[in-house]
C-alpha cells in the first residue's frame, strides 16, 4: 500500500497526485482502451460512424465505472485484511510470553 512514489509517473492536478489514487489509472486505461476498441469494432461491423461513436463512448463510460467499483471494493477489502493482520501482529508482540498468550493458546488448542 505505501509504495515509494515514482516521480516520472506522478500526475498532479489541483495539488493532488492522481496517480496515487488507488484504481484511478487502471480504470481510465481500461475504460478508454475498451471504448476505443468496441467503437472501432462496431464501425468495422456496421460502417455507421455515429452509432460507433455512441457505442464507443457508452463502453468507455460503463467500463470505467464498472472497473472502478470492482477495483475499489477489492482494494478496500484487501486493505481491511492488512489492517487486521497488522493489529494481530501488534497484539501478538504485545502479549508474547505473557499469561494472556498462554490462555489464548489454550483456547485455540
Amino acid at each position, binding site marked *: 500500500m505505501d509504495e515509494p512514489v515514482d516521480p516520472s509517473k506522478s500526475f498532479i492536478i489541483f495539488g493532488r497526485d492522481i496517480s496515487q489514487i488507488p484504481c484511478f489509472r487502471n480504470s481510465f486505461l481500461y475504460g478508454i482502451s475498451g471504448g476505443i476498441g468496441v467503437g472501432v469494432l462496431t464501425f468495422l461491423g456496421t460502417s455507421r460512424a455515429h452509432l460507433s461513436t455512441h457505442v464507443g463512448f457508452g463502453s468507455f463510460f460503463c467500463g470505467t465505472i464498472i472497473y472502478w467499483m470492482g477495483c*475499489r471494493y477489492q482494494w478496500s477489502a484487501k486493505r481491511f485484511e492488512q489492517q487486521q493482520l497488522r493489529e494481530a501482529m501488534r497484539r501478538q508482540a504485545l502479549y508474547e510470553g505473557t499469561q494472556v498468550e498462554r490462555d489464548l493458546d489454550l483456547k485455540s488448542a
Partner: protein
Amino acid sequence: MSTWANLGLQDSASPLMEQLIFFHDHALLILIMITVLVGYLMFMLFFNSYINRFLLHGQLIEMIWTILPAIILLFIAMPSLRLLYLLDEINEPSVTLKSIGHQWYWSYEYSDFNDIEFDSYMIPTNELANDGFRLLDVDNRVVLPMNSQIRILVTAADVIHSWTIPALGVKVDGTPGRLNQTNFFINRPGLFYGQCSEICGANHSFMPIVIESVPVNSFIKWISKNVNS
C-alpha cells in the same frame, strides 16, 4: 497544512479522514463521469439532423434515464452511509480535552490531569518569527498523544464558534450553553492547523487552532511539566 491556492483536501492524519478522502475520490470519479457524459451528449447535438415536431414522450428512454441515475446514486449512498455511521462509532477515549471558544481565542482544559488550563491566542504578524506561519501559529499549542483515542468537548463562552482541524476531519460547533462531543485519533506526529469556522465577529479569521501530536511518553512528560508549573 493549507497553503495558498490549495483546492483539495489536506493529507490525512486520522483513519476517519483517510476514509473521507477515499469516499471523496469515489464520489468525484462518478461526478466526473457524469459530467463527461453530459458534455458528450451536448457535443453530439451539433451533429443531430433529426427533427420531430410532434414528439410527446418516449417510454423506454424515460425508464432508462430514471433507473440508471437511481443505480448510480445507490453506489454513492452505500459508502456514504457506511462512513456516516463509522464517524459516530463509540470507542473508549484515553484523553478528554475541553475546548472553549471566546472572542477571539480558544481556551483548553485537560480535566483528566489536575485541571491543566490555558488560552491559545494567535501570534500577531508583527511578532511572528521568520519561520512562523502567518495567521496560523499560536502562542500555546494543544498537545495531544498520537495513536490514542481522544474525546473533545467543544463549547463557547459568548457567540457560536467552530473548532476545526481539516487534517483530522474534525469540525465541531461550539455553542454557548451546549457541549458538543466528538472523538478522533491521530496516527502520526506533527503539527495540525485549523481555523475558527463559524463567523464570530471582527477577529473571526484570527483565532486559529494548532494541535501538536507527540508520542505518548512525550505527552506524559508535557503533562507532568504543566502540572508542576
